[in-house]
């Protein structure tokens, strides 16, 4: 009722056009054209015209920031950060703000549907029929013929499926997401395993540091937990209460993060490991004492030559790193997405050993594990996804359930997930939006939008204490959708047998309670309660549960420097004169493209809106004879793309870069057929840790003669002086 009420009421508020001017003289006739339906029974905490605020968790990426949704009369009006949430302390990123445009997106999947794969048309079903379909799938096939593919976020759905899998011998659910792929999380945890004693997601305390050396880590954009790292950055920069910290960025293409660095070092892609080790060697020489084994192998002069950095620059940087207190080195981004990504990660971690900052403020930690979590569960690496795809192709799986991830769009075209689906008898998607994968499935049983659903989500990294972030419905579901957990629970009941025993829960909330209950006995939580009802009430009120104590792990770095580190250069797949560096658009990323306001947000580095571009150094552009807005064809070993040129002054002449996030073929009116998807160029190349070597390719550029202007916020005249005439 209430949301109906609000919609009606809203026609009035939103009544722009004639209405506004028709009644400039005041009230009177206009009043006749509105009808108001009062609440049947208004919640007693509610008053007409006053907002109600609900704490919940952001689902736009896997970081798990806490949100507070302002609602009025059943409509969600505005998203704010949850000020008490330890991860984001009341802040959000642009994507979090735009969550509402997903909730009220005109292109959501409104009902459960059945479709012939790939066809746009689809017939609606009832939820009973839908549940029956799921139940049949569970019953029909052998447990090991059923596969679940879910999003990066370690949330309650993942736990539910995992429990189901362990109880029934199904395959464990596979977690994947483009962001985790571009973050190269597998590489980070592998490097940690090799150097820091145990596998885990390292946490870099940027805030506590004084001098940050970042090797390709775009931690102000999408890397791991951008909001918390941005908070750290603002502490680093704070020059009032402490000395302003400095920050050097090593990357071939100046990212928005690199743009904030005091110094940007455009090194040759693939030489990050060398440079890190060289700096390490020079620094430890400056420090005096015996030269650690880790750095012994590298020759700075050689590194300088290969990386294209002057030797004196290396010396200067090494000097800075050695002398400055609170030095910190961060590996990440494109640096890890190369054939030698693991070597880079190790080399950079080793660099921290000189600073000796492990487990100290401003140093390297293991991210705090979420409550009730014993070890870091990392999402599937690209290599594992390839194996998964091979299994699909081989027909090992008869039924595939997909939730919260869009592999058809996100996985490299060379893995050809779409074709692999042909090996599966039944593909069931739980997508909220009609994305490419949903289009390729037999059924779409839409889940609620994040703001309409229950749940919790473990915070993988970013907060210093263990955090379990909680979600609750802030508005009544707008469409005929159903929580996937509820669907699965109902289906398992229908399926009966060990399925029903595995999940003895009435509904989603009961399942949540069963999962949250153990927290009551946990020590130093910031709240606790004696009975589960009160505890759940607090849990919802505060938007989760977290400890008051620092849960970050201190790495064991006994002989980190006492090993041979190979500063091997990366090898690059495909021939062509340009290094290809795809990067994740901070605003569009995995799931932003269907939100019109995110499309209209200018990119931080180029201010381009609504489209894809390729960044080419003006010098290179001149050599190629291309100009801004010219369309060029980019040829990699696996594919070609036509994309508009942006002459980007801060990129190596031998490198080109493209944002990931556009190029959807489905996914709603704002995303579909807009821009291109760099994943179509990516070959199946991996680094030692099994992460995709997305930055490990060389490509060719061909002119097309076409012109397609880009929408930029900036003035090409004012910023680049184009068309201003010669002085």
């Amino acid at each position, binding site marked *: 009722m209430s949301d109906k009420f609000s919609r009606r009421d809203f026609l009035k508020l939103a009544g722009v056009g004639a209405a506004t001017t028709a009644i400039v003289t005041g009230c009177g006739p206009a009043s006749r054209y509105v009808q108001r339906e009062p609440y049947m029974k208004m919640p007693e905490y509610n008053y007409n015209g006053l907002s109600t605020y609900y704490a919940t968790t952001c689902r736009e990426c896997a970081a798990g920031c806490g949100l507070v949704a302002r609602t009025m009369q059943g409509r969600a009006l505005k998203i704010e950060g949850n000020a008490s949430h330890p991860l984001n302390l009341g802040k959000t990123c642009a994507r979090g703000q735009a969550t509402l445009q997903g909730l009220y997106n005109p292109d959501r999947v409104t009902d459960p549907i059945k479709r012939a794969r790939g066809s746009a048309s689809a017939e609606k079903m009832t939820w009973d029929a839908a549940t029956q379909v799921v139940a049949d799938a569970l019953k029909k096939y052998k447990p090991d013929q059923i596969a679940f593919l879910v999003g990066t976020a370690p949330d309650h759905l993942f736990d539910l499926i995992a429990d189901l899998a362990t109880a029934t011998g199904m395959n464990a659910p596979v977690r994947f997401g483009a962001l985790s792929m571009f973050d190269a999380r597998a590489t980070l945890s592998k490097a940690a395993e090799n150097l820091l004693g145990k596998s885990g997601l390292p946490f870099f305390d940027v805030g506590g540091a004084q001098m940050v050396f970042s090797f390709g880590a775009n931690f102000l954009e999408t890397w791991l937990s951008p909001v918390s790292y941005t908070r750290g950055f603002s502490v680093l920069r704070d020059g009032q209460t402490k000395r302003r910290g400095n920050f050097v960025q090593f990357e071939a293409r100046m990212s928005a993060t690199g743009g904030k660095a005091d110094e940007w070092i455009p090194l040759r892609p693939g030489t990050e490991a060398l440079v890190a080790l060289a700096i390490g060697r020079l620094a430890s020489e400056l420090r005096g004492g015996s030269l650690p084994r880790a750095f012994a192998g590298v020759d700075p002069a050689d590194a300088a030559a290969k990386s294209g950095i002057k030797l004196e620059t290396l010396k200067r940087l090494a000097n800075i790193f050695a002398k400055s207190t609170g030095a910190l080195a961060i590996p990440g981004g494109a640096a890890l997405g190369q054939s030698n990504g693991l070597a880079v990660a190790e080399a950079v971690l080793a660099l921290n050993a000189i600073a000796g900052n492990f487990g100290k403020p401003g140093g390297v930690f293991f991210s705090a594990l979420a409550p009730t979590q014993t070890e870091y569960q990392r999402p599937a690496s690209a290599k594992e996804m390839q194996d998964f795809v091979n299994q699909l192709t081989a027909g090992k799986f008869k039924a595939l359930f997909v939730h919260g991830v869009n592999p058809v769009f996100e996985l490299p075209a060379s893995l050809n997930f779409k074709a692999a689906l042909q090996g599966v008898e039944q593909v069931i998607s739980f997508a909220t939006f009609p994305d490419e994968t949903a289009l390729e499935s037999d059924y779409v049983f839409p889940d609620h939008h994040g703001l309409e659903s229950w749940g919790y989500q473990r915070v993988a990294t970013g907060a210093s204490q263990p955090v379990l972030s909680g979600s609750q419905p802030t508005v009544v579901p707008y469409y005929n959708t159903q929580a996937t957990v509820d669907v699965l629970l109902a289906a398992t009941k229908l399926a009966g047998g060990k399925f029903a025993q595995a999940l003895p829960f009435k509904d989603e909330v009961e399942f949540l309670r069963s999962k949250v209950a153990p927290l009551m006995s946990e020590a130093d939580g910031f709240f606790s309660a004696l009975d589960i009802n009160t505890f759940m009430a607090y849990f919802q009120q505060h938007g989760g549960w977290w400890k008051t104590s620092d849960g970050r792990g201190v790495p064991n770095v006994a002989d980190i420097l006492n090993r041979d580190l190979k500063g091997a250069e990366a090898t690059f797949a495909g021939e062509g004169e340009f290094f290809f560096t795809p990067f994740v658009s901070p605003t569009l990323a995995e799931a932003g493209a269907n939100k019109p306001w995110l499309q209209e947000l200018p990119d931080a580095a180029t201010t381009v809106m609504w489209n894809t571009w390729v960044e080419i150094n003006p010098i290179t552009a001149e050599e190629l004879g291309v100009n801004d807005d010219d369309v060029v064809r980019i040829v990699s070993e696996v594919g070609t793309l036509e994309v508009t040129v942006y002459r980007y002054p801060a990129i190596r002449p031998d490198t080109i870069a493209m944002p990931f996030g556009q190029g959807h073929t489905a996914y709603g009116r704002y995303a579909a057929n807009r821009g291109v998807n760099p994943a179509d160029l990516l070959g199946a190349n991996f680094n030692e840790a099994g992460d995709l070597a997305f930055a490990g390719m060389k490509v060719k550029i061909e002119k097309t003669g076409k012109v397609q202007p880009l929408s930029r916020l900036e*003035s090409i005249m004012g910023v680049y002086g184009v068309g*201003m*005439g010669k002085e």
Partner: protein
Amino acid sequence: MAENNKHAHNSEGYFREKHLMLDPLPRGQMNAMAMEAMHHSTWKFWTVFAILCVIVAYCLVYSWIKMILEGLGIAGVNRPAYWGVFLVNTVFWIGISHAGTFISAILRVFKAEFRRPFTRAAELMTTFGLVQAGFSIFMHLGRIWLFYWLMPYPNQRMLWPNMHSPLSWDLLAITTYLLSSTMYLFLPLIPDLAMARDRSTGWRKIFYRILALGFRGTEGEWTHLRNAMTIFAFAIIPVMFSVHTIVSWDFASATRPGWNSTIFGPYFIVGALHSGMGAVVMVLAIVRSTMKNMKYFIRPEHFDGIGKLMLIISMAWAYFFFNDYIVQWYGGDKWTHLLLHFHEAGPMGWMWFAMLICNIAVPWALLWNARWRAMPWVTFAVGLSINIGMWFERYIIIPISLTINRMPFTWRMYQPGVEIPLGIGTLALFILLYMSASKLIPLIPVWEVEEGQMVHELKKFGRETVVSVSDLE
């Protein structure tokens, strides 16, 4: 008039055929000629008329309604060029309208005799031009249906227009100018209307009877008319000056580089006269060549006289342009310097140079020579080039200067959209009104010509023959 080449011809015959005032025809015949010109219209006239009607219907009516319904998005205006061709046209038409008053009022006040046959043509231009200016400025409003909020009227909201804003003054000045110039058009018209009334039948007779206000030509009526005209002639001159000065303040009182220039007032007025004279001469040339009997009334001497005026005004304009440029350059503001540089070297630099050529080079080159000056088609060409040049000048001052501001991040070029059909529409409407007027009222103030002919004569001093005027009063 013709002193400068009397050594060539000194014959009385030469003077007469060249000098309208010296070969009088009987009143009846002259009136008949004027009436015939009014009644007689060829198929060519009607085809042009029809085409113009179509153009107005599409370019003005349809496009405007479309724009009102869809919003200014279909026009080319953007940030930073919030103002575009609409304002250009407004200033342009107001400029056109200035010539009328200038010629008929100022020349009347200074008793320039050669003015007589074409005062009315000029006054018509004033009125019709102002109509187009009004249209253009209303087109530019985002919510035109609320235009009345710009007028001071008591209301329960206790809200008044903001008299700090030049736009409010604009509205007042233009309305005042429209009213007074219409009156000033009407007064000298009365005797001719009475003449027409006595020479026509049917609906025309009723039409003229209503307009002629029962003018019978008694001595008393003439005295009153003369007084009224003299008063208006003197009164309207300051109005005219104020109007374009205020228009210039729209720009001069803004805080934009290239706009806030103290010389803009006189600069705009001279510019207005410049384009206005150009327009007058074009109209005269067309009227002379297309309408019947007009070759008698409008003669080379008139083009010669106007040509001299145009030359002088062109020089004045050149001076003010240079003055404005040098003052802004000397001001040394970095943004202004950027702007000046952008005018010349920017993507629209060609327009800047074209403006200088059309406004200075062409007139100076062609109008020096008395023989060329007297050729209608030459002066027509010059008038055309001047009008194009002056339109360019306004285009440079408004959208192109708006491109450059103090926030380089927002600089953007402006491309006109629906402004183009709407602009063409106003032009078509102007011509249409003029054509219909030429068929409804005598384009030639016959009585003024007669009056002039009464007082002109040739006197011989020794071997010199000169044209002398014995004053009426």
